[in-house]
């Protein structure tokens, strides 16, 4: 396919420097009735004929990858190709819980790399991503939960990641709405608290990375689906086919979450992934009533209150694979039953919206950030139910992997090859719930 009209060719040296936000600008806009804000990133109608790197998928991870390629590796001829609108995939559908208290040392290193980046991300991007480290409390309801929490806490402390045990009285003090001591089917026996954990604003993360990447020369092309991956005579990547024209490139990073298997199949690569619907729902907005993030693996529930005031609630995955983007109603009902026991005053809340995202689950529930057997093809996937928290860290190490054709030490263990060697990073048993 050739370009229907004349190709779009920006002069990358003339890409306007980022129009930075400041207090003065905010005041001026206030007096002008907020009418003077321009577009925050360039949005070319179609891709150019060639790039150094093409990123497939404009979610948070794809946009972060492009940003760090330009920022840290000076690779600026980069396109992010997005089928829909940026952040319209799982990035815009998730419950935004951020934490790094994973059991395995490899995971703790990867997720904590990300938490450290979250801490200064708003300043880095000059965009408020509303990172709010309000604490993530993971409840224990039975002897097994308590033992598992203790094991995590000790493992995390050895890995230099904060995580502490709260007894029931301390749980009640930290999160007063919880029904501690009540006659529950799953009583609250305590909880593991990561104080540096919290939430961030999902859309702002996509927009902030898009804006900063665009200012460094990255092209973000929306409403453009990748339909094929092209290979040269040696089998190496030579370009991609899209619904808005073909692109020549030597490197492609696939960051397509639930659609990773579909995109990788275009190069004949079978992935160790299965795509499942995962759903979330929000209540009507109410005054601040829930001070932290609460999760429970045992009853498959997680709750936080957004800055708008909605209770944001996540449920479990469906029992079978699907690309339908809707979860089973009985799954959400189960979660709501359990949450109404945990927080009795939520019984009177009305739920406003629920939706599903398609998450890519790997066999060991750890991500895959890897080179592949196809030269020039890289994949960032398998984040499943819990990759939002890793957005900056994932983009950071994946950009390194693409730029150097070698993984960063932090993502080296998260290779595709681990499914052949058996060196799995088994978080499956440790975190059998979305988060």
């Amino acid at each position, binding site marked *: 396919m050739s370009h229907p009209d004349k190709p779009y060719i920006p002069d990358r040296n003339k890409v306007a420097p980022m129009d930075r936000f400041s207090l003065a600008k905010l005041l001026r806009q206030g007096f002008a009735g907020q009418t003077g804000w321009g577009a925050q990133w360039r949005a070319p109608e179609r891709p150019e004929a060639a790039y150094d790197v093409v990123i497939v998928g404009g979610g948070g991870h794809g946009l972060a990858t492009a940003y760090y390629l330009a920022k840290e590796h000076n690779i600026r001829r980069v396109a992010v190709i997005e089928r829909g609108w940026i952040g319209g995939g799982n990035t815009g559908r998730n419950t935004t819980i951020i934490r790094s208290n994973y059991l395995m040392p490899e995971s703790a290193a990867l997720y904590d790399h990300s938490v450290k980046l979250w801490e200064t991300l708003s300043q880095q991007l000059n965009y408020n991503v509303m990172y709010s480290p309000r604490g993530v409390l993971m409840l224990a309801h039975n002897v097994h939960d308590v033992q598992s929490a203790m094991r995590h806490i000790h493992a995390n402390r050895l890995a230099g990641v904060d995580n502490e045990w709260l007894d029931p009285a301390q749980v009640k003090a930290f999160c007063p709405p919880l029904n501690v001591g009540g006659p529950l089917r799953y009583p609250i026996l305590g909880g593991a608290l990561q104080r540096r954990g919290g939430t961030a604003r999902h859309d702002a993360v996509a927009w902030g990375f898009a804006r900063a990447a665009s200012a460094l020369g990255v092209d973000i092309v929306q409403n453009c689906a990748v339909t094929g991956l092209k290979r040269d005579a040696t089998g190496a990547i030579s370009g991609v086919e899209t619904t808005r024209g073909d692109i020549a490139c030597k490197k492609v990073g696939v960051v397509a979450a639930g659609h990773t298997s579909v995109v990788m199949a275009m190069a004949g690569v079978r992935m160790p992934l299965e795509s499942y619907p995962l759903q979330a729902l929000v209540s009507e907005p109410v005054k601040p009533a829930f001070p932290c993030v609460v999760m429970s693996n045992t009853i498959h529930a997680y709750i936080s209150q957004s800055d708008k005031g909605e209770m944001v609630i996540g449920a479990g995955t469906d029992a079978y694979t699907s690309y339908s983007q809707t979860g*089973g109603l009985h799954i959400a009902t189960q979660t709501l039953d359990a949450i109404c026991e945990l927080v009795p005053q939520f019984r009177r809340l009305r739920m406003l919206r629920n939706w599903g995202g398609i998450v890519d689950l790997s066999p060991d529930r750890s991500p895959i950030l890897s080179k592949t057997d196809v030269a020039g093809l890289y994949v960032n996937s398998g984040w499943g139910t819990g990759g939002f928290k890793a957005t900056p860290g994932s983009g950071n190490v994946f950009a390194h992997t693409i730029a150097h054709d070698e993984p960063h030490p932090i993502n080296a263990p998260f290779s595709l090859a681990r499914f052949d060697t058996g060196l799995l990073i088994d978080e499956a048993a440790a975190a059998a719930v979305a988060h």
Partner: protein
Amino acid sequence: MKLIPCPICGERAEIEFTYGGQAGLTRPADPAATTEAEWGAFLYARENPKGMHRERWRHIHGCGQFFNLTRDTVTDRFIP
């Protein structure tokens, strides 16, 4: 709730069933002659298609029967 056609009991609610994933995976016949990559592919690689999927089900809270079905993973409809 979604209804799943058990070949013995007919259509029953989905919570009576367990899902067994991709159908037709065969264990390598000669383990000693199987490479790591072949084992990896057998254990972990999956088609995961957006579209028709041949898959394994069990009517665990009913008659206990194992069976295969074809489902369109976009609409979740079973295809006879």
